[in-house]
C-alpha cells in the first residue's frame, strides 16, 4: 500500500507548490502592481527612465499613472537647450481600446501654463554625432494612436545666456486625429523680442492651423502649417501682413519640405527641399523676391532709388560629411537715382545681376566664382557698366592672397553725369565717357588694393560755356583701402588741351579714418589753359583737424619768354599753422614763412573768366611776406606796394576806368583776431581822376565780430558824362560798420558826398547808426534810429543824355531832399523838398515834345519788404508809391494838378500793380500848346477832372470818373454842355476789366445820358462791348459837337481818290489818325434809345444794332418813329487806310414810311401851316468819305425819293392879313369879275387836294439839296418843279433858302379861271391839263416857301401887265375903302 503512495507524492508536491507559485506570482504581481500604482514608485521609475538620456531630467510635485490616464502637477522636464514646465497636466486615454484593438486612444490632453524655454546655444552643443534623419522620424509610434482632443496653452521663451531674447505665448486646440483621418489643430502664437523696438504692437503674430496626417505605419506622415503672419515694425521698416505655409511630407527616400511666404506685394519667398535619408543629403532651392521698389527707402527711412530684385540659392548639404554646395544668383533693377540725390536725376536706370558659387569642405568655405554687374538699362553694347568678376577661387575663411582675386571694370560712364555739380561753377561738360580697369587684391585680410590695369582716359573733355579749350585727361589711380584709411596714388596725371597746353602731375593723398587727417604731396607742372604762364607747384602737406603742416610748398607762374617768374609764392621753411587761431608754434616765431612776389604780371587774361567785365593792366611789382612774430602770430605785410600800370576796367564794352593803381595789403593774424588793411590805396585814371584812401578790416574770430572802415576821397576832374555838365567833382565816402551778431550789421557811420565847385550835388548821410541784417527767422531787416537823409543838388537834365537814348532833355532839377526810414521790414521815403524841374524841354528825333515846361511833385514811398535769402531766396513786397501836390506849368500857364497813390505787390520775379488812387485836373488851354499835343484836336479852353480809384487785382471794384467842362464848340460860338463819364467795374482773373459805364451830357432842357457795359482786355489793350446801349434821351447833335470839339483838324489839302486835285467843297477837314475812329473798340451794342434828337428833328424809340469790327462799323436793323412815320435803315462805315482822300467810307440807306409832312414844317415853324400836308414815304441812299465821324456826317451826299398821296397843298396867300385880301378871298360881289375869279382861285390854292406827290433829288457833299423833280398832282392842278436848297451851316433843312422853279398846269374850273385870266395855254396837253404860260419861281425857306411870285403873276393877269400882288391889293383896298360909306348902318366890320 505505500509504493503507489510514494509514487504519487512528487506530483502532489508539485501540485502543492503550484498554488504557492500562483499565489506568489499573483502576490508578487500584486505587490509589483501595487508598487507600480504607488505614485512615488511611478515617479521614481519615470525619473530613472528619463535620466537614461544624457542631460535629460524630469521633476514634479505629484505624478500618477492610472489605467485611464496620467495625472501630473508641477511637472518639470529638461533636456539640453530645452526646459518645459506644466502646472496641471492631464492625459486621459481609453484602456479598453488598447486592450481590445491595440490602439492607443488619447481621449484628452490638457496642459495649462506650459512654459517652454529654449536655449539655442545649448541645443547646438548637444550631441550631433548622428546626422539629421528627418523631422517625422521623431514622431513615429509602435502602435496606432488617436488623439481626440488636445488643449494646451502656455508661454515660450528663447534665451541667450541669462537674457530672454524672445518671449511669447501660444495656444493650441484641436484633435480628431486617427490613423485614417488627419487631425487639425488651431494655434495662436504671439512673440515679442528684446531685439525689436519697444511698442505695444511690435510683436510677431501668427494664427492658423496645424494639420497632422498619419500613415499606415502609425507615424505622422505629413505636417502642414498654414497661417497668417504679422511681422513687427523694425525702425522705419513696416512690412505688410502676409501669409505663410510650411509642409513636411514623408517620402520614400526621406522627407520633402515645401514652404512659401508672401508679405503683401513687398516680399515673396519659396522653399523647395528634399531629404534623402539613405544618401544623407538635404538639397533644394530657396528663392526670395523683393517686389516693392520702395522697400529699401522704407527700411532706411530716407528716399532711396527704386529697387526690385529676385534671387535664388540652390543648395545641397551632405549630412554625414558636413559638406555644402551652394549656387546663388539674382537680378535687380535700380531706377530713380535722383531720389538719393537730386544731382543724380539724370543718371540712367540700371539693371544688375550677380552670381556666386560656394562650396564647403571641412571647415573651409571657398567661393569658386563670383560676379557682379550693374549696367544701364539700355539696349546698347556701349552702355555704362560696372562689372566685378572673380579671377580665381577665393578661400573666404582665409581671405588672403597676393594674387589678384577679381577684376573691376568701369566702362562707358558718361562724364556729363557730373554736370549737376558743375552748375554752380557755370560750366557744363559735353558728352564723353570715363572708364577704367583695376585688379582687386587682398594683400592680407585687412587691405583691399585696387591696382590700375590700364589708365583711365576721359576724352574729349569740353567745358561749355567756358574759355577752357577742349582737352583730354589720363590718369592711373591706385587705391588702397584698409581698416585704418584710404590711400590714393596717381603717378601719371596728364591733362592736355587741343590747343597744345599740357599739365602733368604726380600726386598722392591719404585719409586716416581714426584721426581724420588728410595728407598730400605732389608736383604739378604745365601750361594752364587761358593763363599765359607755365605753372609749377610742389607741395607736401598734412591737415589734421585745424592744424596744417606745410613741409614744402612753392608755386611759380612764368611767362614763356621771361627769366623771372611773374608770380612766385614760396614756403621758406616748414611750418605748422593752427588754422583756428591762425598762429604758428612759438618755435617758428620771428621767421619769414612765405613770400609772395610779382614781376610784370599781365592781368588781361582774367577777362577771359570775367564775362562782360574786362580787366586790363600789368601788376608790375609787389612783394609781400607772411611772417611769424616771436609769439607765433602771423603777419602778412607788404614790403613793396603792389602797383598796377595801365589798369583798365571795361564793363559791357564801356571803359569805366583806365589808369594806375597802387596799394599795400597788410594783414595781422593774431589768436582770435585778423586785422587787414588796404593801406596807401590810390587809383588814378589817364584823365586825372583820382581816388585815394584806406580800407581797414578787423575780425575777432572767437567772438565772430568784424569791423570794417572805409575812407575814400576822390578828385574827379574828368568823370565821363559829367565833365561838361558839372566840371570837376570832388567826392568823399566815409563808412564804418561792425557786425553785432552773426546776422546783424550795424552801420556806425555813413556819409557820401559829391560836390561840384564846392556845391553839393549828391549826399547820403546817416545822422545816427542804423542796422541791417537777418532776423532769427532769416528775414532781411533794417532799422533806423533817425531817418537817413538823401539830398540832390541842382542838376541839369542834359547830364542824363548819355542814358536817355534818343530823348534830348533840357532843364534843371532843382535841389531836392528826402528822408528814408526803416523799421524791420517796413521802409518809408518822404520828401523834404519836392522834386522840381524847371525849364524843361524835350526833343525826340528832332521833334519838340515839350518846352517851357515846369513840373514839381512830392514823391513818397511806403514799402513792406520780406526777404529771406537763404536757403532759398524768397522775396515778397508790397507798398504804395505816392505823388502829391503834382503840378505842371507850360509856358507860364498852369496845366495840370495831380495827386496819386499807386499800390503794388510782387516778388523777385514779378511786380504787380495792386491798387490806384489818382485824381487829376487838366487845363486844356495850357496843354494845347504843348508841341507833343499840338494838332491833336485839343479844344482852346476847358478843363478835365478825372479820377481812378480801386483795386487792380479784382478784389475790390475800380471806379473811373471824369468831367469835361467849359469846352467851346468847334466854331467857338458857345460853350458846350459839360460831359461826365463814370465807370464802375472789376478786374477779372482773365486780365480783363469789365465796367458799367454811364455817360451824361448836360444838355438842356433835358440831359443826354447813356448806359452800357464796357470791357477792357488788359492783355490785348482792346475795349470790348457786348451789351445794350440804353438811353432815355440822346442829343446826337450835341454829342457830335463835343466830338467835333476834340477832333484834330488838318490844314493840308486833301486829294481826291483818283487824282491830285484838291477838292473844292467846303466843310472842315480832319487829320487821319492811322486807326479807325472807333479805335480799339470792338463788339456790339443793341441800341435802346428812347429819343434820339438831332435838333430840331427827333426819332423816337430807336432800336438797332451797332457792330464794331477791326475795319468795319455797321449799324443795322435801325428802327424808330419819326414824324409819325416808321423810320429805319442801315449804315456801314469801312476803314480804308490806303485811301489818302479819306480813310473812312460811309454807305447807308434810310427810309421813313408814311411820315406826316406837316410835322416836318411844324418842327421848325410851329405856328405855320405846312405848305404840304400829306403822308409820304421817303427813301434815301447816302455815302460819304472822310477821316472822322463828324466829317463823314458833314460831307454826306446821297439821293432821295419821296412819294405820297391823299394830302393837301396850301399855297399861302401873301398879305392875307389885309381886308383887301379877305375881300378877294371872300369873293365879294362888289369886286370886279376878274377879282371875283381870282378869289375863287385863291380858295383853290388855299386848300388844294393832292392825288399824288412825288419828289426826288440829291444832297451834295457840301450840304446843298438839289430837287431834281417835284410833282404834285391834284384834281384841277398839276405842279412840276425843280430847284435847290443851298447849304447853310448850322441851319436845319426847313429853315434854309428855297429856290424852286414851278410849272403849273390846270384843268376844269381852275383852268377856266386861269384861262379867263389869259394865264394858261388855250389847248390842253395830252394829260388834259392846260399849262401856265409862265414859269414862276418860289423863294423863301424850305419850310416856309414865299408864294408871292405866283400871286404876282395872278395880279398881273388881273390888273394888266404892271403891278404885283401888293399893287393889286392896294387897288382892291382902295376900292373897298370907297365902298365902305355906302354900306347901310356904317360902323366897323
Amino acid at each position, binding site marked *: 500500500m505505500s509504493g503507489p503512495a510514494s509514487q504519487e507524492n512528487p506530483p502532489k508536491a508539485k501540485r502543492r507548490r503550484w498554488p504557492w507559485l500562483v499565489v506568489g506570482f499573483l502576490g508578487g504581481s500584486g505587490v509589483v502592481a501595487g508598487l507600480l500604482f504607488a505614485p512615488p514608485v511611478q515617479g521614481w521609475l519615470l525619473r530613472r527612465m528619463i535620466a537614461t538620456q544624457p542631460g535629460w531630467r524630469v521633476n514634479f510635485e505629484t505624478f500618477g499613472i492610472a489605467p485611464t490616464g496620467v495625472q501630473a502637477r508641477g511637472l518639470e522636464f529638461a533636456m539640453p537647450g530645452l526646459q518645459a514646465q506644466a502646472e496641471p497636466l492631464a492625459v486621459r486615454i481609453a484602456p479598453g481600446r488598447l486592450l481590445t484593438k491595440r490602439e492607443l486612444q488619447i481621449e484628452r490632453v490638457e496642459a495649462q501654463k506650459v512654459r517652454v524655454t529654449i536655449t539655442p546655444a545649448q541645443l547646438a552643443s548637444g550631441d550631433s554625432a548622428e546626422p539629421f534623419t528627418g523631422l517625422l522620424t521623431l514622431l513615429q509610434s509602435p502602435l496606432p494612436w488617436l488623439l481626440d482632443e488636445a488643449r494646451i496653452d502656455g508661454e515660450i521663451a528663447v534665451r541667450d545666456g541669462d537674457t530672454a531674447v524672445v518671449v511669447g505665448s501660444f495656444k493650441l486646440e484641436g484633435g480628431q486625429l486617427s490613423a485614417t483621418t488627419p487631425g487639425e489643430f488651431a494655434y495662436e502664437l504671439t512673440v515679442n523680442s528684446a531685439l525689436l523696438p519697444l511698442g505695444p504692437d511690435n510683436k510677431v503674430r501668427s494664427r492658423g492651423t496645424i494639420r497632422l496626417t498619419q500613415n499606415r505605419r502609425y507615424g505622422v506622415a505629413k505636417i502642414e502649417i498654414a497661417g497668417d503672419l504679422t511681422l513687427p515694425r523694425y525702425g522705419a521698416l513696416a512690412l505688410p501682413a502676409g501669409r505663410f505655409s510650411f509642409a513636411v511630407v514623408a517620402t520614400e527616400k526621406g522627407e520633402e519640405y515645401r514652404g512659401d511666404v508672401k508679405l503683401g506685394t513687398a516680399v515673396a519667398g519659396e522653399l523647395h527641399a528634399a531629404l534623402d535619408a539613405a544618401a544623407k543629403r538635404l538639397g533644394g532651392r530657396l528663392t526670395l523676391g523683393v517686389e516693392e521698389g520702395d522697400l529699401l527707402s522704407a527700411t532706411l527711412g530716407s528716399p532711396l532709388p527704386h529697387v526690385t530684385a529676385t534671387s535664388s540659392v540652390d543648395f545641397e548639404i551632405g549630412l554625414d560629411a558636413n559638406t555644402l554646395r551652394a549656387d546663388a544668383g539674382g537680378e535687380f533693377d535700380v531706377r530713380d537715382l535722383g531720389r538719393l540725390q537730386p544731382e543724380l536725376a539724370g543718371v540712367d536706370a540700371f539693371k544688375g545681376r550677380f552670381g556666386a558659387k560656394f562650396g564647403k569642405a571641412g571647415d573651409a568655405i571657398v567661393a569658386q566664382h563670383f560676379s557682379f554687374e550693374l549696367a544701364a538699362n539700355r539696349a546698347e553694347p556701349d552702355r555704362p557698366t560696372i562689372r566685378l568678376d572673380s579671377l580665381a577661387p577665393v578661400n573666404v575663411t582665409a581671405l588672403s592672397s597676393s594674387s589678384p582675386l577679381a577684376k573691376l571694370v568701369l566702362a562707358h560712364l558718361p562724364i556729363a553725369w557730373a554736370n549737376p555739380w558743375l552748375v554752380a561753377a557755370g560750366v557744363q561738360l559735353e558728352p564723353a565717357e570715363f572708364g577704367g580697369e583695376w585688379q582687386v587684391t587682398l594683400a592680407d585680410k585687412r587691405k583691399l588694393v585696387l591696382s590700375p590695369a590700364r589708365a583711365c582716359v576721359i576724352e574729349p573733355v569740353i567745358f561749355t560755356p567756358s574759355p577752357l579749350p577742349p582737352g583730354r585727361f589720363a590718369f592711373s589711380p591706385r587705391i588702397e583701402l584698409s581698416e585704418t584709411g584710404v590711400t590714393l596714388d596717381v603717378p601719371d596725371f596728364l591733362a592736355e588741351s587741343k590747343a597744345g597746353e599740357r599739365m602733368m602731375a604726380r600726386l598722392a593723398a591719404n585719409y586716416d579714418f581714426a584721426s581724420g587727417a588728410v595728407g598730400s604731396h605732389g608736383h604739378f607742372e604745365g601750361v594752364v589753359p587761358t593763363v599765359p604762364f607755365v605753372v609749377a607747384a610742389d607741395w607736401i602737406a598734412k591737415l589734421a583737424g585745424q592744424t596744417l603742416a606745410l613741409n614744402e610748398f612753392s608755386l611759380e607762374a612764368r611767362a614763356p619768354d621771361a627769366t623771372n617768374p611773374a608770380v612766385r609764392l614760396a614756403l621758406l621753411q616748414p611750418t605748422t599753422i593752427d588754422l583756428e587761431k591762425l598762429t604758428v608754434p612759438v618755435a617758428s616765431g620771428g621767421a619769414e614763412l612765405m613770400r609772395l612776389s610779382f614781376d610784370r604780371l599781365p592781368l588781361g587774361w582774367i577777362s577771359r573768366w570775367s564775362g562782360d567785365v574786362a580787366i586790363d593792366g600789368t601788376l608790375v611789382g609787389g612783394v609781400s611776406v607772411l611772417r611769424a612774430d616771436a609769439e607765433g602770430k602771423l603777419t602778412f605785410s607788404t614790403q613793396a606796394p603792389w602797383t598796377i600800370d595801365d589798369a583798365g576796367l571795361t564793363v559791357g564794352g564801356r571803359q569805366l576806368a583806365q589808369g594806375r593803381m597802387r596799394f599795400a595789403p597788410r594783414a595781422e593774424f593774431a589768436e582770435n583776431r585778423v586785422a587787414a588793411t588796404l593801406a596807401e590805396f590810390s587809383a588814378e585814371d589817364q584823365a586825372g581822376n583820382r581816388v585815394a584812401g584806406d580800407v581797414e578790416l578787423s575780425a575777432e574770430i572767437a567772438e565772430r565780430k568784424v569791423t570794417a572802415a572805409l575812407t575814400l576821397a576822390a578828385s574827379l576832374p574828368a568823370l565821363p558824362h559829367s565833365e561838361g555838365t558839372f566840371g570837376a567833382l570832388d567826392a568823399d565816402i566815409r563808412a564804418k560798420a561792425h557786425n553785432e551778431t552773426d546776422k546783424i550789421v550795424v552801420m556806425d557811420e555813413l556819409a557820401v558826398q559829391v560836390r561840384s565847385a564846392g556845391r553839393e550835388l549828391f549826399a547820403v548821410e546817416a545822422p545816427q547808426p542804423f542796422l541791417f541784417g537777418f532776423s532769427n527767422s532769416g528775414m532781411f531787416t533794417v532799422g533806423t534810429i533817425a531817418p537817413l537823409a538823401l539830398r540832390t543838388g541842382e542838376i541839369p537834365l542834359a547830364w542824363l543824355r548819355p542814358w536817355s537814348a534818343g530823348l534830348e532833355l533840357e532843364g534843371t532839377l532843382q535841389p531836392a531832399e528826402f528822408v528814408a526810414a526803416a523799421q524791420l521790414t517796413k521802409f518809408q521815403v*518822404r520828401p523834404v523838398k519836392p522834386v522840381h524841374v524847371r525849364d524843361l524841354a524835350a526833343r525826340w528825333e528832332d521833334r519838340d515834345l515839350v518846352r517851357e515846361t515846369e513840373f514839381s511833385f512830392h514823391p513818397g514811398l*511806403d514799402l513792406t519788404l520780406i526777404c529771406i535769402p537763404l536757403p532759398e531766396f524768397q522775396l515778397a513786397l508790397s507798398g504804395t508809391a505816392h505823388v502829391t*501836390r503834382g503840378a505842371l506849368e507850360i509856358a507860364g500857364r498852369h496845366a495840370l494838378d495831380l*495827386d496819386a*497813390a499807386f499800390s503794388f505787390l510782387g516778388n523777385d520775379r514779378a511786380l504787380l500793380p495792386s491798387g490806384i488812387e489818382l485824381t487829376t*485836373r487838366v487845363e486844356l488851354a495850357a496843354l494845347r500848346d504843348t508841341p507833343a499835343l499840338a494838332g491833336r484836336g485839343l479844344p482852346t479852353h476847358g478843363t478835365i*477832372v478825372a479820377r481812378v480809384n480801386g483795386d487792380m487785382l479784382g478784389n475790390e471794384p475800380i471806379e473811373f470818373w471824369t468831367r469835361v*467842362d467849359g469846352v467851346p464848340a468847334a466854331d467857338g460860338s458857345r460853350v458846350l454842355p459839360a460831359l461826365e463819364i463814370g465807370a464802375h467795374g472789376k478786374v477779372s482773373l482773365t486780365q480783363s476789366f469789365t465796367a458799367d459805364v454811364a455817360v451824361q451830357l448836360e444838355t438842356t432842357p433835358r440831359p443826354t445820358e447813356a448806359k452800357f457795359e464796357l470791357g477792357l482786355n488788359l492783355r490785348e489793350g482792346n475795349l470790348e462791348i457786348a451789351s445794350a446801349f440804353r438811353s432815355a434821351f440822346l442829343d446826337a447833335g450835341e454829342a457830335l459837337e463835343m466830338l467835333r470839339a476834340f477832333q484834330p483838324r488838318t490844314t493840308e489839302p486833301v486829294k481826291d481818290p483818283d487824282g491830285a486835285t484838291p477838292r473844292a467843297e467846303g466843310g472842315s477837314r480832319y487829320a487821319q489818325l492811322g486807326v479807325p475812329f472807333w479805335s480799339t473798340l470792338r463788339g456790339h451794342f443793341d441800341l435802346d434809345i428812347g429819343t434820339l434828337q438831332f435838333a430840331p428833328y427827333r426819332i423816337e424809340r430807336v432800336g438797332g444794332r451797332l457792330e464794331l469790327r477791326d475795319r468795319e462799323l455797321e449799324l443795322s436793323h435801325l428802327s424808330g418813329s419819326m414824324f409819325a412815320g416808321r423810320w429805319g435803315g442801315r449804315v456801314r462805315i469801312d476803314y480804308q487806310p490806303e485811301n489818302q482822300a479819306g480813310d473812312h467810307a460811309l454807305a447807308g440807306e434810310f427810309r421813313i414810311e408814311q411820315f406826316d409832312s406837316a410835322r416836318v414844317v411844324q418842327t421848325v415853324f410851329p405856328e405855320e401851316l405846312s405848305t404840304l400836308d400829306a403822308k409820304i414815304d421817303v427813301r434815301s441812299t447816302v455815302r460819304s468819305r472822310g477821316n472822322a465821324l463828324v466829317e463823314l456826317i458833314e460831307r454826306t451826299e446821297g439821293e432821295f425819293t419821296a412819294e405820297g398821296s391823299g394830302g393837301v397843298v396850301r399855297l399861302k396867300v401873301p398879305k392875307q392879313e389885309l381886308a383887301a385880301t379877305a375881300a378877294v378871298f371872300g369873293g365879294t360881289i362888289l369886286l370886279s369879275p376878274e377879282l371875283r375869279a381870282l378869289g375863287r382861285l385863291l380858295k383853290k390854292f388855299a386848300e388844294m387836294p393832292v392825288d399824288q406827290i412825288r419828289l426826288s433829288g440829291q444832297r451834295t457833299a457840301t450840304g446843298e439839296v438839289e430837287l431834281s423833280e417835284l410833282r404834285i398832282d391834284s384834281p384841277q392842278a398839276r405842279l412840276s418843279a425843280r430847284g435847290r436848297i443851298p447849304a447853310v451851316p448850322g441851319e436845319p433843312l426847313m429853315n434854309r433858302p428855297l429856290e424852286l422853279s414851278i410849272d403849273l398846269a390846270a384843268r376844269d374850273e381852275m383852268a377856266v379861271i386861269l384861262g379867263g385870266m389869259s394865264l394858261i395855254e388855250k389847248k390842253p396837253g395830252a394829260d388834259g391839263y392846260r399849262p401856265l404860260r409862265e414859269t414862276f419861281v418860289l423863294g423863301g425857306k424850305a419850310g416856309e416857301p414865299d408864294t408871292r411870285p405866283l400871286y404876282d403873276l395872278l395880279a398881273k393877269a388881273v390888273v394888266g401887265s404892271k403891278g404885283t400882288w401888293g399893287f393889286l391889293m392896294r387897288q382892291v383896298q382902295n376900292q373897298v375903302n370907297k365902298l365902305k360909306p355906302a354900306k347901310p348902318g356904317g360902323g366897323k366890320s
Partner: protein
Amino acid sequence: MRRVSAILFLLAGLAGALRAAEPEVRVFYGLATNTTAEASANVLLVLAIDGEKVVGQMQTEAPLAGSGRLEGRLIGGWCELKGQLEEGFTIEFRGACNARDFRGTYTAAVPGELLQYGKFQLSLQSPAKVMPPEK
C-alpha cells in the same frame, strides 16, 4: 444820432462862412484809410461851397483822429482842402468831388513824425436825412 449831432456841430462851425452868402452845403460821410498806419475810420465832412471857394468842417471817428476846419477850392470837380486840425497836425485833401461822392488822397503832417499818407471815399449824404426837420 451821433451823426446828427456831429453835423449840427459842424454846421455850427460853418456858421461864420454861411453868414455872408447862401452857399451850397454838401454833407459827405465815408471811410478814410491811413495807408501809412494801415488804419481806417469813418469821416464826416461838411462843405460849404461858394463858387470856387470851399469851407469845411470834418470829424473823424476812432481809431483815426482829426477834427477841425478846412479851407480850399472846388474847380470843375477838382477839390483841394487844407486845415490845421485840433489834434495839432495839418491835413491836406485832394480829390474829385461830384454830385455823388468825394474821393481822393490825403496827407497828414504830424510834427516830429514822417509824413503820413491816406485815401478817402466819402459819399454825399442828404442833409435832410441826417438833420431834424425845422420847426
